[in-house]
């Protein structure tokens, strides 16, 4: 019932946005209201619910509900941030359609259908990216060419592993399944080809496109959790875990180095996020109970930082026409809230204390086998790159600005600092999450059981 309600709301949202497309303020208000309603509905699920839709089993677990609710909240934030500025109605209609497809992709039990739904959702991201005219369109098509592969590759992995369970002696299915699964995950998390598609979206895409891509990554992790334990044999799980570990390690270190070298805020931000996604892969690859739970939490914190950071980045990009560190002098005086929000998000992405992301990083590092001390040191040291980048940002925004203000950028700036504040708040009062939602630890355990039964 919850699933059908969420789907009905998303579809109604698409129709209403198309009908009312001429009134941008109404469209933003409508999309915000629908997303908030969906977040409340999805977040209030306390028991697993099973139903059938077009002959396929739908399983709506509380963990799916909480994660979807979080994704809806992030989408709401970026939608509200665009009230007076960035997006056209095509982007909003695509966002609602994307929400419907992702909800279905996470909830449906059939692996092949889930992969196809995820693939369709990723195509919609291109519509959102293509909305503002200043975007680099070749880049968005190149991104599409990579994104379009994720759904079919996941589908291939599911099909091969299902076929393998019917023909246990045929190793070719196994090879195909494992290769496809690894390629899907590496492509989907931006680890391979390194820096090809994810950083351009973060740097050039609008905040909605950035958040939608992040949500697709979360859906991919959820689908991985649905595939892995059922279809792979124990050594296969180990192989996938090892490859995840290595991909995570490379992503963390390379992302960190590039964040250190970039001379623009969008570059520092994009590679800090990529490096942080590597930590999530590392946590999943280590594969212990604690590291898997920490990895999921880390992915959620990354979502908060990514949402807040992309909103703040859009504010500065809009005002200064670019985000080179030499261009944004005086931003601290002109946009103190956006700068503060960005800085807090950056600290969280760097894994510095007092921001969410520090504890989860620390937990994941402590779970790395003691035999791999060198790896632990390398990964921990990799946090320095983004941290230096963010301190360079803090130095670059000093000075005074003589340009005329744009007061309508105040709303996104407030949203940005709220996201940054949330990251500090979570780290300062970690038990508050449990107090707000007593079922939350159980849900993390539920996710862990999905991945390693």
């Amino acid at each position, binding site marked *: 019932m919850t699933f059908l309600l969420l789907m009905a709301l998303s579809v109604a949202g698409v129709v209403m946005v198309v009908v009312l497309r001429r009134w941008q303020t109404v469209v933003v208000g409508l999309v915000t209201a629908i997303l908030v309603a969906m977040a409340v509905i999805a977040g209030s699920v306390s028991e697993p619910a099973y139903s059938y839709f*077009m*002959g*396929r089993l739908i399983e709506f677990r509380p963990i799916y509900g909480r994660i979807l609710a979080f994704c809806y909240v992030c989408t709401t934030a970026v939608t509200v941030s665009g009230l007076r500025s960035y997006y056209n109605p*095509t982007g909003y209609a695509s966002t609602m359609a994307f929400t419907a497809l992702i909800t279905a992709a996470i909830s449906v039990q059939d692996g*092949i*259908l889930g992969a*196809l*739904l995820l*693939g*369709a959702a990723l*195509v*919609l991201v*291109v*519509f959102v990216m*293509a909305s503002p*005219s200043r*975007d680099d*369109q*070749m880049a*968005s*098509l*190149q991104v*599409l*060419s990579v994104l*379009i*592969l994720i*759904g*079919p590759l996941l*589908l*291939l992995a599911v*099909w*091969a592993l299902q*076929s393998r369970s019917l023909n246990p002696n045929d190793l*070719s299915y196994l*090879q*195909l399944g494992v290769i496809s699964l690894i390629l899907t995950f590496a492509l989907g998390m931006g680890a391979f080809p390194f820096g090809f598609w994810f950083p351009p979206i973060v740097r050039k895409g609008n905040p909605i496109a950035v958040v939608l891509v992040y949500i697709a990554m979360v859906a991919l992790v959820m689908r991985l959790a649905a595939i892995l334990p059922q279809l792979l044999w124990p050594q296969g799980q180990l192989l996938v875990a090892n490859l995840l570990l290595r991909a995570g390690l490379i992503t963390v270190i390379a992302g960190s180095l590039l964040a250190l070298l970039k001379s623009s805020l969008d570059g520092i931000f994009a590679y800090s996020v990529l490096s942080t996604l590597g930590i999530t892969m590392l946590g999943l690859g280590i594969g212990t109970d604690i590291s898997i739970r920490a990895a999921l939490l880390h992915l959620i914190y990354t979502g908060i930082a990514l949402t807040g950071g992309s909103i703040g980045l859009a504010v500065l990009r809009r005002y200064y026409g670019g985000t080179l560190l030499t261009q944004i002098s005086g931003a601290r005086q002109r946009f103190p809230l956006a700068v503060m929000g960005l800085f807090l998000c950056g600290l969280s992405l760097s894994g510095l204390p007092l921001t969410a992301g520090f504890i989860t990083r620390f937990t994941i590092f402590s779970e790395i086998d003691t035999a791999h001390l060198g790896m632990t040191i390398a990964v921990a040291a990799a946090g320095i790159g983004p941290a230096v980048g963010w301190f360079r940002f803090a130095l670059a925004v000093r000075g005074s600005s003589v340009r005329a203000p744009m007061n309508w950028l105040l709303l996104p700036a407030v949203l940005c600092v709220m996201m940054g504040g949330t990251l500090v708040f979570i780290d300062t009062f970690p038990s508050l999450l449990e107090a707000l939602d007593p079922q939350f630890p159980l849900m993390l355990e539920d996710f862990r059981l999905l991945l390693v039964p």
Partner: protein
Amino acid sequence: MNNTLIALFEKLQSFSPQSTAILIVITAVILMLTSDVRRAVVALLVQYTLLAILIGPRVYGPLTILRIGIGIAICAILLVTIRHARVYAASTLAAQRSSLAVILYRILTLVFSALAVYAVWQANLLHLSPADGLVTYALILSGIFLAATGNEPLRLGIGILMAISGFATATVLLEQGLLVIGLWGVIELLSALAIAASIESWADAQQKASVR
């Protein structure tokens, strides 16, 4: 007119899967080599029709018509977009397309993709029949090569559409649920629309740049 179409359709259906597969591969080769955008769209339409004829009757009869309909819709979207995007008539782009270096580059891309298709076809990891395997691998790999080496949105977009067609063909041959087939149709149409939107914006940006 109708009788001619029906006769043509029957004639095409009488082709063996092997002949149809070879014709599909020929359309893929044309798409990789041609510089003329309209010719490319026509070749794409022929490819969609042949694919529908290859897989439709083996899965579910009326699917042939549905697949041809999707192909026509996609090609119509691309043709309308090309007409809007006047930059495709610009002399500079035309000159760039026909230069010797570009032709050699395309031939090299074709050779590499042919080698890749042959290697994957020999391995046949999907356990498809030789004709189905040839079509599937040729479409996926040449599509990916075309998308990876495309220097303008239409070429890149056609590569993406070819790769999707290849994946859709494989899925439809392996998992014949109507919901899955329908979803592939939706993905193909959405992709065509996304490509069209990107081409229009790219053309706008090109025109603005040339005015400056």
